């Protein structure tokens, strides 16, 4: 039983990490209707930038601030060079554009900062502590706290600030929002900047877990089932979806894996997501407006 619980808990913590990635997608999807495949590349780019700067001797806090600034500049460039020329085009074209964008960002990241695996030490000890009879990694707990803080900050920003309210207006009805004077390009720049900083946080947490390297950009793919389960347009959904995917994936790996020759984690989440699509197409918390027949 305690083995089951430990698997469940470590799966839930992995799920928190998935949620961190998924939140970046939700932000951009809400504001511009784009499934941003380049989110993974942004994650890699930001984590690599921080690591490279700290390896050059810059203090971590300063490196974090500089990288945040770089991500804001990147967001402005993306809005100007990619999103603006492509506005009013169908979602698939925009998705393809973000695919192209991910090639460009990954290319730049590795061209400028090399392709080696960098170790990233956030100074959080990765030791197991006993909580209520089961062992839990201290790192996981702190990572979850970081995720929680991020989510709380975003929630306050969206519900209380003028910017956040205009963003929700754009998400609810783009045309109406424009007609009352909300400037769409500005909103896009802000949202992509925030998503860039979310990518930075997610990249640091993931990177300190598995090293900062190319495979970081692949966590994008795990975000898709998380988003489908949680709903593309809901931040609480992204978190619930992440937890659900993390937990079921870990359990499936332990209990189904041995029956079928090894790890099922590459595809299990997708099959789960398809099951959800069939039963509840809008996801757990998503809007009802999903295209369905």
């Amino acid at each position, binding site marked *: 039983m305690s083995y089951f619980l430990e698997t469940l808990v470590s799966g839930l913590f992995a799920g928190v990490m998935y949620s961190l990635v998924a939140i970046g997608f939700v932000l951009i999807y809400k504001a511009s209707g784009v*499934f941003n495949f380049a989110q993974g590349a942004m994650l890699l780019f930001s984590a690599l930038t921080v690591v490279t700067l700290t390896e050059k001797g810059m203090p971590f806090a300063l490196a974090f601030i500089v990288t945040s600034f770089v991500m804001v500049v990147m967001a402005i460039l993306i809005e100007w*060079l*990619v999103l603006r*020329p*492509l506005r009013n*085009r169908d*979602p*698939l*074209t925009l*998705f*393809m*554009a973000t*695919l*192209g*964008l*991910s*090639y*460009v960002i*990954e*290319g*730049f990241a*590795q*061209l400028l900062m090399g*392709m080696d695996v960098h170790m990233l030490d956030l100074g959080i000890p990765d030791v197991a502590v006993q909580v209520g009879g089961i062992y839990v990694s201290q790192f996981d707990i702190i990572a979850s706290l970081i995720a929680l803080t991020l989510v709380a900050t975003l929630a306050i920003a969206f519900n209380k600030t003028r910017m956040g309210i205009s963003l929700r207006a754009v998400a609810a009805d783009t045309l109406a929002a424009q007609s009352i004077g909300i400037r769409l390009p500005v909103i896009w720049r802000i949202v992509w900047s925030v998503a860039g900083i979310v990518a930075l946080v997610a990249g640091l947490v993931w990177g300190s877990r598995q090293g900062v390297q190319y495979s970081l950009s692949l966590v994008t*793919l795990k975000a*898709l*089932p998380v988003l*489908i389960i949680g709903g593309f347009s809901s931040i609480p959904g992204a978190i619930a979806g992440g937890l659900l995917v993390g937990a079921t994936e870990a359990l499936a790996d332990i209990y189904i894996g041995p029956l*079928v*020759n*090894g790890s*099922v984690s*590459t*595809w299990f989440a*997708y*099959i789960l*997501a*398809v099951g959800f*699509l*069939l039963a509840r*197409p809008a996801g757990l918390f998503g809007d009802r407006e*999903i*295209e*369905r*027949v």
Partner: protein
Amino acid sequence: MTTLQESALSKPLRQPAFGVGILAVGAGLIAAFAVPVLADDYWLSSIIIPTVIMGLAGIGLNLLMGYTGLVSIGSAAFMSIGAFSTYNLLLRAPFLPLPIVLILAGLIAAIAGVIFGLPSLRIKGFYLGASTLGAQFFFEWLFTNFSWFSNDSQSLTISAPRLQILDYDLQSATGRYYLVIATTALLIALAFAIVKSRVGREWMAIRDMDVAASVIGIRVARRKLLSFGISSFFLGIAGALWAFGYLGTSDAHAFNLDKSFQILFIVIIGGVATIFGNFLGAAFIVLTPILLDRLSLIIDLSFLGDQGALANLQHIIFGTIIIVLLIKEPDGLSSLIKRGVEALRPRARSSG
């Protein structure tokens, strides 16, 4: 002047003059069969064969995405099913001739396509991507983890036991080219026949407005599944050709997510809801990396350092070209060519 009907979304079923069509097809076939005389083995094996096969795969996805309006980001999965089915059929049923094997492999891929297309009955748009992405990862896992599919080979690779039709050995570059071009020519004809048939028109009706389509009596669910099936049939055969006509030896990872994305690019860059546009898109996908390679040999890029830096530079250029094409040429390369032809036409008339 473009009316709504001439826009890329609702492609008109314009019939070219019959005689012109026959002439064009005849000239095309003669040209296709004369290619090995003109091109050397390098051109055949490294450029022409992969371009033709990827174009065929593009047709497969385009039938689904361009004509029926259903998104798939797992096309390579159905290619891998075709490849592994061909391998196992050739191995375990050696009495079957190659054309039959290819058709059977296509049919097996079609069945898988129908199964993974089932969610399309309830959902559409981008969400459908999840189901097809599931197929992508599931089959890559299946063919890697169950060595039965690769006849228990240690390296999990498959290579064709024999490629022959009626004792003609097709292992040489020319032989493989003829296999690829003949198969592709037949499938292009099939694709045209389907697109111009009742089924094709019903697909387009579903794409343009599914509710209206069901109101006028089109059985939407059946047509969607048929579209998944036929699309996967094309992809399956393309996969078999890719594995044995081009690579020779391959494994499940030859059909990874990157390959699926490449096929998506082919459709978008070549032109949505076109048949020949796919070959333009395929040429772009195959030629761009080769050209960038050549370019780097001419221009001294040693200041960049190692080979890895070069690969990254290529990624940047490739990604940029894709974004620029999406911005500047929304209807794909095929519309660029069509516009070019139409710009030439009045001049030809006035002179003649």
